Structures are given as structure tokens and as C-alpha cells.
């Protein structure tokens, strides 16, 4: 019985990870402007060539079109094949998701919601309150947001000066890891998103085109 309790305890404890420690320099409200900010500054339409890596070594390529407005946090997005067939098209405004077109397996609300959340994490500054600003033990500049849904988002700047975003679950597990690189013409040319889910996936996004969107 004691052994069983011990095993359960070890299992539970190992499932709970802790967030990396941020050594705070000054109160967050005084240094918020020092946070890395790889996010969009204005409403923009972006086209990305996206490599999708799925479990089992399966790879696919699609074209992603995103219109994102950081002021309203409204998103319009579409996924299409290289050949031009639209697989998915949706709009989210004020938290209301409208799936305009979706072919299986993109026709589930879960997929759509996850995709919109990924897009927001990539292009929008996190919502919520900045909890800490400082440095990680490994030396990166880090700003930590506590979002409304018990998740934590760290926005980092590596020693090479490149921004990264990490979203942690309430138990401290990394759910999303985003790396930005190749800043040219006001936009990051390459974005890599690693998603840790039951079925994990990685997106390699290469910018094809970006331009300010009409209001």
C-alpha cells in the first residue's frame, strides 16, 4: 500500500513541471517596454508557405493566408493546398468563430479553435498581465504573462537577439514553442511553431508576402 502511494506520488509529481525561474530586475510596470515584441503592430495580411511535420514522420506542405488585426484581435485565415484548393477558411471576431469553409479533417471546431489560438500566439502580444520581467538562468531576456485561462506565456529574447514565445499549461508543461528568425522589411521571414499535444506537430512557416491590410 505504501509502495503504491509512493508510486502515485512520484507519477503525480513528475507530471507537474515548474516554470523556469525569472530573475526579476525591476517591477514589471516600469520595464514593460523592454519586453521582446515580435508581434504585429498593425492590421496585416500575410501569406506563408507552411511545412507541416506530423507524428510518424509525415510531412505535408500548405499555403497559409492570415489577416490579423492586433488592435481588435480579429483574425481571418485560410489554408489551401499548393494546387490552390481551399481546405479551410474561418474568421474570428470578438471571440466568435465563424468557419466559412472546411473540408475534412479541418471541419472540427476543435481544429479551428486550436489554429486560431496558434495564430494569435504567433502574431499578437499576449493578453493578460505581465507578471515578471527579467532574465532566465540561461541568460535570455524574459517577460512572463499570466493569461486568463491559467496558462503562462513567456516572450524571450535569445542571446542571438531572436525572439521566442513559450506557452505553458497550468501544470507548467510547454504546450507551444515558437521561434522567429530572419527579420527583414518589418516582418520575420521564418517562424517555427512546435506544438506539444496528444498528437504533436511542428509548423515551419516561410513568409511569401506581407502587406498592410485595408481596414
Amino acid at each position, binding site marked *: 500500500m505504501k509502495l503504491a502511494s509512493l508510486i502515485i506520488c512520484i507519477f503525480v509529481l513528475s507530471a507537474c513541471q515548474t516554470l523556469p525561474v525569472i530573475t526579476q530586475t525591476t517591477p514589471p510596470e516600469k520595464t514593460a517596454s523592454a519586453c521582446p515584441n515580435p508581434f504585429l503592430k498593425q492590421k496585416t495580411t500575410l501569406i506563408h508557405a507552411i511545412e507541416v511535420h506530423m507524428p510518424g514522420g509525415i*510531412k505535408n506542405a500548405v499555403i497559409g493566408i492570415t489577416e490579423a488585426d492586433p488592435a481588435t484581435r480579429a483574425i481571418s485565415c*485560410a489554408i*489551401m493546398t499548393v494546387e490552390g*484548393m481551399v481546405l479551410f477558411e474561418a474568421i474570428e471576431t470578438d471571440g466568435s468563430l465563424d468557419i466559412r469553409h472546411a473540408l475534412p479533417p479541418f471541419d472540427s471546431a476543435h481544429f479551428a479553435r486550436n489554429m486560431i489560438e496558434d495564430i494569435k500566439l504567433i502574431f499578437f502580444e499576449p493578453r493578460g498581465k505581465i507578471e515578471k520581467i527579467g532574465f532566465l538562468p540561461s541568460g535570455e531576456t524574459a517577460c512572463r504573462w499570466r493569461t486568463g485561462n491559467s496558462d503562462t506565456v513567456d516572450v524571450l529574447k535569445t542571446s542571438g537577439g531572436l525572439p521566442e514565445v513559450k506557452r505553458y499549461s497550468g501544470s507548467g508543461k510547454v504546450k507551444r514553442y515558437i521561434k522567429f528568425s530572419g527579420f527583414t522589411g518589418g516582418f520575420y521571414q521564418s517562424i517555427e511553431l512546435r506544438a506539444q499535444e496528444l498528437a504533436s506537430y511542428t509548423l515551419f512557416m516561410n513568409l511569401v508576402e506581407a502587406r498592410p491590410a485595408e481596414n
Partner: protein
Amino acid sequence: MRRSQLSFLFILCGIILAAAFPNAYAADAGFEELRKNAAQIKTIQADFIQKKSMKILTKPLISEGRFYYTAPDSFRWEYLKPLKSIVINHKGQTKRYIYSGGKMVEDQSGGAQGMKVILGEITSWMSGKFDQNPSFKATLKEDTYTQITLTPVGQNMDGMLQKVIITISKKDAAVKSVNIIESETSSTVIDFKNTQTNKNIPESIFQDIE
């Protein structure tokens, strides 16, 4: 997704193959003549520019590529920009390649069974049989250009395809463009240039991906 994706690709290839028989329509002879002349075409190669229009796009997304066909059923449909990809059908095998990690790799996401079904479906197009595929209703229109309009019959292409308009020049009988209308707000126009027929195409085109 795979089957839908490949359906679209093969529909597209089939339409283009069927439409790319330049001499077939020269005599103003209708579908029967078109079918008869299609048998004389042994190879086709062309460059293409694809313009994708959608509501979300303020201007069309331009893709460029190259297309090869050798009778009876070898084809290579290759995108060069903005995203490299190749579909090759040769000796009964269909493979799709995508650009990953700096090289072309085979798309392993499945769908081989779907490919076989779809390839069978488009065989009639490859033979120039516009009006004999029960999945489509074909109509002809004569104006400055000759237009063939293919409209899906039944519901299996709902949400994927509304109609296809193939425009053929009367002057040189060459296919000018293929307009694939998926919905009121989404269409794909493919403009062809440098089209050559019955010019030797090495078999390696259907074997090598680089």
C-alpha cells in the same frame, strides 16, 4: 483531406490535359472531332501561371510552374513558386513530392487508394472526352474565344468545385486559360504559355524529381 486534395489536383490535371489538345478544336467540329483528334497528341509541355483569388486576398496569389504529359498517362505537374511541389504519374504509380528541409521529399501522408479511383475518373478527360464523363456536364460557347464549360453533376464535388471554364484561342487553337471556380469568392485561373505538343519529352522527366 488527402483524397480531397488529390481529387482537386487530378481534376485540375485532367481538365488541363483534356484542354491542351490544340489542334483538336481547330475545325469547329464539336466534341466528337475533339475526341478523335485527341488521340493524335502524344506529348504536351507548357509553363503556367496560376492566379488564386479569394475574399481574404486583396490581390491574387501567383504561383508558377511547369507541366509535362506523355500519352497515355504519364504527367508531371510541378510548382516552382512560391512553394515547390511535384506530382508525377508514371507507369501506374502516382507520387507527390514536397520541398522540406532544403530538398524534395516524397509526401508520405497516404491516399494511394484515392489516387487510383480519381485517376480512373479522369481517364475520359485525358482522351478528350469532355462530354462523356458522367460527373460533368459539358457545354460549348463560340465567341472571340471558344469556351468549354464543365459543370459537376451530382453532389460529390459540393464545396470543392462549381464549374470549370476552358478558353481556347480560335486563332491558333491553343488553350489560353483554365478558370476553376470553386465558389462565389474563390477561383483559380491558370494561364498557359510556351505550350508545345508532340515534342520529345525524356522519360527521366517522369522519374527524376530534381
